[in-house]
């Protein structure tokens, strides 16, 4: 029995605090909380989305060969992840195996995307919450201490104190902030070299790529990669210094954003030696991916089998503005291996939107559905999160012990990353070990380690691709026929976590298409079992370390928690504080007209 003395909710003085919008996407994620300022704790949290996209509705009837071009438009920053995932799903449906060089080129493009997107998010978005200006406002005591604390890894990044690092994170003027913008240009150039365009690639197709493979293509990439790697080595050291300092300066900060370990990773970077995009062999080629797919529950690896992962997916309702589809058509009752496919699986989902007023008090309150993973060991529907992507990827890869390349190795309990000597920095060896539990700081820390992982992998991919080209093999495309009837699924990692595209073709047209990007998993509302989604779960019970009272409360600890999940460029956060009233509900306008 827990002995924690917590007053029942009705006896506590709760203040409604709404953060709406926290942009996902174009400003449509809202976080509605009830905070007990006396106990300095968030008591309740609901995550809502007021945007409906409808891809699963309007994809029906279209030519399946267009699907990667259309679904790329789902996102304005990780569109190429969608294109890649759609290409994987189409390869499976058409039964085509692209030439090895095509897969190496896609891997190189995606590695550059991870470097680009994680860096711009970490240094231009996340660190605004940890920069001098913000910390001075929210925790002046911490800032004073930062000024006095020497940076332990100063020899690697060149900053003398923690305060110096935090000053360099100041938006628009800090050195790191500005350097990250320069890096984002370089890494986008790398993507454009491989995929033709960023973020909506023009040279990715099912069956291969249209990129013309020449030695110069890869050396152009490599030149940029070495310069980016210089930055990454310094960035990892700065991250570690700042995050270690927060633990030290704010004892108990590890409880902020803490959540039970329930992480999902769908794997990234195909190995062309084995991948044939055939569902029947999906476990074999899935396990050879250079980021291992896996589900980690309570710090244990549950599975790395993509077939298990696929069949366990369930899309639940409960607090979403949709009608149930149980009476609608079943598109796939058995997978190609003969396993039964559930009615709530994306292959069988029919989207039936039912717009209605938001009701945060026991009713429906979000356009996001509640994706869950059915754990057949316990019969639980797990609200997996991605932790913003990197922590889940590194955790699954570390425990699986399957990745073994010259630059990155999984040891079964950690991931070792060896970055070679680059123009202005020496060879660097990094090791990421899973923390005791995921929280806000660890999600953020993993992000820069994964950027290093992607860079190290990119060195390997360049080596492999150049081997192909040097032997004169320049083929990048395999022709194919579109079947009348087929099904396909693509598993990939969007920058901020798991990504799957489920495709059903009938009569040569799309009969059903369901993309499941990471944010529906992370931002999901309560399902019909009452299980809260990951944002809600991580923010509920979150202690408040901010020194400001209710009058000028910024909600920095809540914002850091939500942003640690990388809710897609939260660039325009507005906040509405309900005037300190007790348990009154305020209806916040979506675009923050009342935000102050």
């Amino acid at each position: 029995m827990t002995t924690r003395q917590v007053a029942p909710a009705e006896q506590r003085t709760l203040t409604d605090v709404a953060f709406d919008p926290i942009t996902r996407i174009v400003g449509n994620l809202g976080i509605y909380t009830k905070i007990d300022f006396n106990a300095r704790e968030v008591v309740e949290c609901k995550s809502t989305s007021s945007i409906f996209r409808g891809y699963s509705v309007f994809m029906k009837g279209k030519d399946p060969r267009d699907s990667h071009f259309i679904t790329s438009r789902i996102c304005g920053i990780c569109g190429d992840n969608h294109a890649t995932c759609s290409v994987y799903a189409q390869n499976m449906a058409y039964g085509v195996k692209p030439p090895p060089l095509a897969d190496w080129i896609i891997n190189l493009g995606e590695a550059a995307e991870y470097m680009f997107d994680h860096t711009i998010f970490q240094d231009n978005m996340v660190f605004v919450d940890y920069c001098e200006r913000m910390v001075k406002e929210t925790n002046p005591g911490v800032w004073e201490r930062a000024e006095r604390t020497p940076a332990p890894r100063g020899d690697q990044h060149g900053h003398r104190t923690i305060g110096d690092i935090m000053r360099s994170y100041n938006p628009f003027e800090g050195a790191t902030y500005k350097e990250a913008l320069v890096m984002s240009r370089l890494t986008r150039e790398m993507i454009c070299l491989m995929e033709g365009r960023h973020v909506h690639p023009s040279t990715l197709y099912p069956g291969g790529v249209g990129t013309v493979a020449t030695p110069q293509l890869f050396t152009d990439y490599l030149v940029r990669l070495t310069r980016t790697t210089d930055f990454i080595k310094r960035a990892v050291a700065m991250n570690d210094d700042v995050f270690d300092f927060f633990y030290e300066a704010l004892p108990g900060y590890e409880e902020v954003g803490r959540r039970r370990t329930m992480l999902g990773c769908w794997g990234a970077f195909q190995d062309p030696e084995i991948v044939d995009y055939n569902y029947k062999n999906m476990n074999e080629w899935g396990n050879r991916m250079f980021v291992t797919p896996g589900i980690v529950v309570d710090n244990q690896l549950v599975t790395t089998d993509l077939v298990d992962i696929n069949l366990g997916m369930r899309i639940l309702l409960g607090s979403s503005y949709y009608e149930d589809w149980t009476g609608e058509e079943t598109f796939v009752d058995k997978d190609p291996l003969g396993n039964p496919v559930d009615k709530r699986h994306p292959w069988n989902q029919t989207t039936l939107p039912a717009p209605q007023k938001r009701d945060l008090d026991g009713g429906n309150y979000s356009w996001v559905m509640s994706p869950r993973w059915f754990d057949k060991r316990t019969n639980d529907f797990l609200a997996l999160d991605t932790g913003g992507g990197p922590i889940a990827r590194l955790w699954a890869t570390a425990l699986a012990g399957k990745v073994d390349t010259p630059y990155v190795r999984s040891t079964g309990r950690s991931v070792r990353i060896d970055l070679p000597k680059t123009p202005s920095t020496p060879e660097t060896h990094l090791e990421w070990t899973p923390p005791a539990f995921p929280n806000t700081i660890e999600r953020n820390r993993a992000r820069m380690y994964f950027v290093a992982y992607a860079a190290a992998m990119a060195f390997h991919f360049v080596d492999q691709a150049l081997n192909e080209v040097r032997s004169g093999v320049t083929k990048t495309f395999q022709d194919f026929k579109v079947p009348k009837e087929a099904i396909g699924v693509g598993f990939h990692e969007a920058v901020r976590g798991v990504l799957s595209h489920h495709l059903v073709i009938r009569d040569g047209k799309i009969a059903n298409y369901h993309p499941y990007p990471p944010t529906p998993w992370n931002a999901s509302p309560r399902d019909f079992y009452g299980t809260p989604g990951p944002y809600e779960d991580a923010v509920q019970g979150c202690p408040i370390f901010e020194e400001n009272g209710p009058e000028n409360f910024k909600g920095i600890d809540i914002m850091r928690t939500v942003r640690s999940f990388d809710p897609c460029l939260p660039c325009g956060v507005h906040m509405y504080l309900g005037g300190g009233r007790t348990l009154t509900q305020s209806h916040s306008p979506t675009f923050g007209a009342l935000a102050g």
Partner: protein
Amino acid sequence: MGITVGRPDVEPDRPAHVAGVRRGNHKGFIKRQPGHRRNDRSTARRSTGINARHRNPVDRDMPNLSPA
């Protein structure tokens, strides 16, 4: 009230492919792609139509790496 729109002139489920137009994924399309060989290699003809043969490697054992 509302937005005035014209009469729709497309069927939403009409496939993008127009009959008669060559498809990039067409089986055997390699016949129409000069410079690409069936052994997964390519020649200078991939890059240029002008005196392509003179731009191939001088030694047969060298890889044929034409520019983009």
